[in-house]
């Protein structure tokens, strides 16, 4: 399941998407808005996405994981719009029979997302 949306992301909802009896491990990455950044206090972030292409590229990441680790239970949710410090911007959950695959695939998804998914971040600082 992949999604780019303005709505708040709830990690437990994303985890439920990937839970199945055959899976012995679920690895979840939660990305949040942090401050300071670049040495400055962040007031809030604005994420913008080219939604249609973005969701297409998230599906591509899930397919790449399926091909490489034979894992089908992957969920990637990225939030867009205005986010305050501490809010969740990204949740990725990967389930697998064994933890090794789940850790590797989750790391891959986080790194790959930055390479190919058309999303842009704008940080607004306290001057």
């Amino acid at each position, binding site marked *: 399941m992949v999604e780019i949306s303005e709505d708040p992301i709830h990690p437990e909802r994303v985890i439920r998407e990937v839970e199945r009896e055959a899976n012995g491990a679920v690895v979840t*990455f939660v*990305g*949040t808005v*942090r401050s300071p*950044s670049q040495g400055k206090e962040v007031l809030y972030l604005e*994420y*913008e*996405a*080219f939604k*249609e*292409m*973005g969701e*297409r590229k998230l599906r591509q990441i899930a397919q790449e994981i399926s091909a490489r680790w034979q894992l089908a239970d992957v969920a990637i949710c*990225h939030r867009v719009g205005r986010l305050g410090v501490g809010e969740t*911007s*990204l949740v990725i959950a990967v389930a697998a029979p064994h933890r090794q695959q789940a850790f590797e695939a989750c790391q891959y998804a*986080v790194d790959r*997302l*930055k*390479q*190919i*998914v*058309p*999303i*842009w*971040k*704008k940080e607004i600082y306290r001057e």
Partner: protein
Amino acid sequence: MKIKARFFALYRELTGSSELELEVEEGITVAGLKEKVTRDFPQLQGHAHSLMMAVNSEYAAPDVKLSPGDEIAFLPPLSGGSRG
């Protein structure tokens, strides 16, 4: 022929528009359109080297030929995901 150009994030701010219908010559390539648009919008010229282009929501090589009605997205360097 007519094609649709879409500008996102920084490029929307620089060009002042998110979407434009452009009249271009038949058989123009992705690289050709990039040259035309950076000529029409000088404020994009400093960014030409880091600008990525997608045709109909898929990244496209510079030599790809465009067809009427294609949607070409001008994409700034990506910064989605998390720095964490």
